[in-house]
Each structure stands twice: as C-alpha cells, then as structure tokens.
C-alpha cells in the first residue's frame, strides 16, 4: 500500500469528520453523526496487508482522538485511546473475516464500517469505565454507559449508510493505492 496516499486520505477523512460531518448530524435523533474515517478504515482493512492495516488503523485512530469532539475536556486535554485502540481492534476483527468476504463490494465496506464504529464505541465505553474506577486516572473524561453504547450503535448504522457512496468512491481509487493483497475473493 502506498503510505502517502493513505496519509492524504486519512487527513481528508478526519478533516471531513471534524469540519463537514455536521451537515449530516441528526440533532433530533440523539445527535447521530456518521464517520468518514471509519469508511476509510473499512476500505483499507479489506485490501491492505495485515501489518499495514493495524498500523494504518492506529494512525487513523490517533488523528481521530486528537481532533475536537467529545473526548476533549477543559484545558484542551484529550484522551488518546477510544479510536487509537478501537480502530486497530476492529481492523484485527476485519482481518480475521476478510478472506470469506467479497472485498470489492460496497455492501461489504458498509457492513465493516458499522463494525468499526461499534467497536470504537465499545472501546470508548471501556476506557470511560476504566478511567472512572481506576484511582489514579482522575475521574471521568470520556462518557460511558448504556446510552453511549446505544448512541454509538446509531452512529455505526448511520456511518454504514454513508459508506455506500464513500465506499463506491474509494473503490474507484484502488489503482492509486497499489494494494498488495495477494489472492482475494472477488464478486462477479
């Protein structure tokens, strides 16, 4: 995989998440907002070599964690982990299943985007619980609870919908990425 293509795509995806995604926010439905970064992660996790996928997921997660949002507290403190851990874990899950999937299908990218956002939300909840209970962590900075999990499930479903057009666009750019994914199962 060409890393510079990925870095540019990651910057673009995070910029869209932190600047443009507000257009899609469903304010009357619990502020559900889709994620462009998760679409990119699902695409890369399907096609890139395994080690590259994990590092790419960590890099993308780091960018997402250091962006403005709910993980930001007073004093500009930001918690690194919800995405920097959640994305590699979801990438690892995708790597275990991708051999049985039609990799160049938009529907596959949409389903795996759902998985990425859900796992990142689950990791965020776990980190929230850890920070709440660990005596040295200094209390809650990341919200957690049943509502947050429901909210992340909604975000995941919404991101899967967004992944249909975004995934199609990404699939058209495959020649730029120079993926070395060996044998894969293809549709049609």
């Amino acid at each position, binding site marked *: 995989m060409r890393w510079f293509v990925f870095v540019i795509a990651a910057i673009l995806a995070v910029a869209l998440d932190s600047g443009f995604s*507000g257009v899609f926010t469903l304010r009357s439905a619990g502020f559900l907002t889709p994620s462009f970064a998760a679409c990119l992660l699902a695409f890369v996790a399907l096609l890139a070599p395994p080690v590259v996928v994990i590092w790419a997921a960590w890099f993308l997660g780091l960018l997402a964690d250091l962006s403005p949002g709910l993980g930001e507290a007073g004093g500009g403190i930001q918690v690194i982990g919800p995405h920097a851990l959640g994305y*590699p874990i979801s990438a690892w899950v995708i790597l275990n299943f991708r051999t049985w999937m039609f990799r160049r299908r938009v529907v596959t990218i949409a389903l795996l985007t759902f998985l990425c956002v859900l796992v990142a939300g689950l990791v965020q909840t776990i*980190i929230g619980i850890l920070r709440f209970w660990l005596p040295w962590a200094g209390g809650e900075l990341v919200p957690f609870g049943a509502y947050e999990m429901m909210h992340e499930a909604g975000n995941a479903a919404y991101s899967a919908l967004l992944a249909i057009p975004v995934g199609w666009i990404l699939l058209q750019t495959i020649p730029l990425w120079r993926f070395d994914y060996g044998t894969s199962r293809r549709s049609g």
Partner: protein
Amino acid sequence: MALTLVVAVLPTRWLGWTGDAADIVRIPIMPLAGMGSRVAGVMRPVNMQRGVAGTVEDMLHVEAQRDRLERLLLQEQLRVAEIEQKLRHIQGLPPQTRTEQPPLLLESEVTGRRPDHPVSGVELHSPAEAAGRVQVGDAVTWDGRWLVGRITRVSDIRLSALPITHPDVGPMMGALLSEGLDVDVVSAPTVRLRQNGNGQLLGEIDRRTEAGIGDRIVLADRAWPASLQAFHVGRVTSVQDIDEAPLRRRLVVEPDVHLYELPWVVIVGRDGTNGGKALP
C-alpha cells in the same frame, strides 16, 4: 497497542501534552476542516427562525436589532444597579470604573467540530491579532446576543472552546426574564445554573417565583466580564417539581444557539472593569 492503553488511562494531570500533540496533528487538517466547516455552514445555516412568528427576512433583521438593543439596555440596567450598590457601600465610584476600556472583540472561524454530542468542544482558528490577547476563560459569543461558550485553551496555532453547557465551564448566575414587554432585569429573580452534561443547564428557584416555559435567561454573573452581562444564555424548556425540596422548582434551560452549529463566532476578551476572572 499496550502503550496506547497505558496512555488512555493516564492521570488527567499527565495528559496536558495531548493538547500540544493535537496542535501539531491538526496543522495539516485545520485548513481542510475549515473549508468543510464553511461548506457545512452554507449547506446547513444556523436556524434563526426559532420562536419567530413571521418568516419575512426584514422581520428577522429587525428582531435581531431589537434583541441586541434590549441586551444593551439590560446590561446597562445591571451595571447601574451594581454601581448604586457600590455607592451605598463605599460612598463613591471605585477607581477602576474610570479606567474602563472597551472589550476585545475578535471574529474567529470554527475549523473543527464533531457534533455527535451537544457538549462537544470545537476548534477555532487563531487570528493573527489574537496573539497574546485572547486568554483562557474569554467568552465565545454569536450575533452580539448569545453567549455560546468559553475559551479553554490558547495556542499559537488554534484555540479550543467548550460550550456553556459543558460541565467543565462551571456554574453561572443568570437572571430569569419572563416573556413580555415589561422586563425589569434588576428585580428579576436570579438563578444559579449548572450543566447536566446533556446540553442543558439546570437551575432551582423558589416555588413562589413565577416562571414558565419560554422564559429567557440572561447572564447576570459578576464572575464574567461586565461587557458580557445580559447576554442570552437560553430559554426555559421545562419547569419541574423537586421531590427532595418541595419549596423549590427545577428549571431546565436550553440554549437558543449552540456552539456546534456555528460556522464562526466572536470572542469577547477582558475589558478594564472588575470581574472577568479566568476560569477556576
């Protein structure tokens, strides 16, 4: 991965460096995110028609002007009341009122926001003229009428702000103004507002105090700069009984304008008067 997990559970006081890391990481992202934010602002403009009976553009303009003038009037009334009180106590105006300077006003573009939660923080472009003049604790306002947030971090590259509904902003005092033409801000009941973490503010008032849904809350808190007094905080969306305190009622206040929906804001810095201390 193990290192990332360790970082995720580090004590809060050891996470100060993450702000600097974010500054560096956001350098290539901010221009693109700023463009995205501008496009988003055009595609989904701030809904200014909430609570307006008509839909004519002129009417909105006139209403905006009226609100601004009314805010200035309320601000002056609060100021007069404060000065009267001082006169009664110290037999003269305090010296700092004679050295009053106008507040710093800076327009700043919102370059980053993740509006998947009503209390999400935003990232603001740091204008060149902001260097050394914008401080932590300065207010973030919109349209000369609404108080929407507070600056929480200042760096050479960007500014971070949290909405007034974020718990880290802390409690604030507001004056409760009922809907109507005769508004007397000096005798209006004051209410201490605290954030509930879900994008709303909660306050408690005496049961005998008249309060209803739609009543306005304006800032009346001397911990904030004098130039920010009487800025709109929000409207009462619910009045609830409190089982534990039958003589009091709980007000649920929701801002009319939210920080996450704005493409740009105006930062109001400190003026020369007393008050306006930095965030605790």
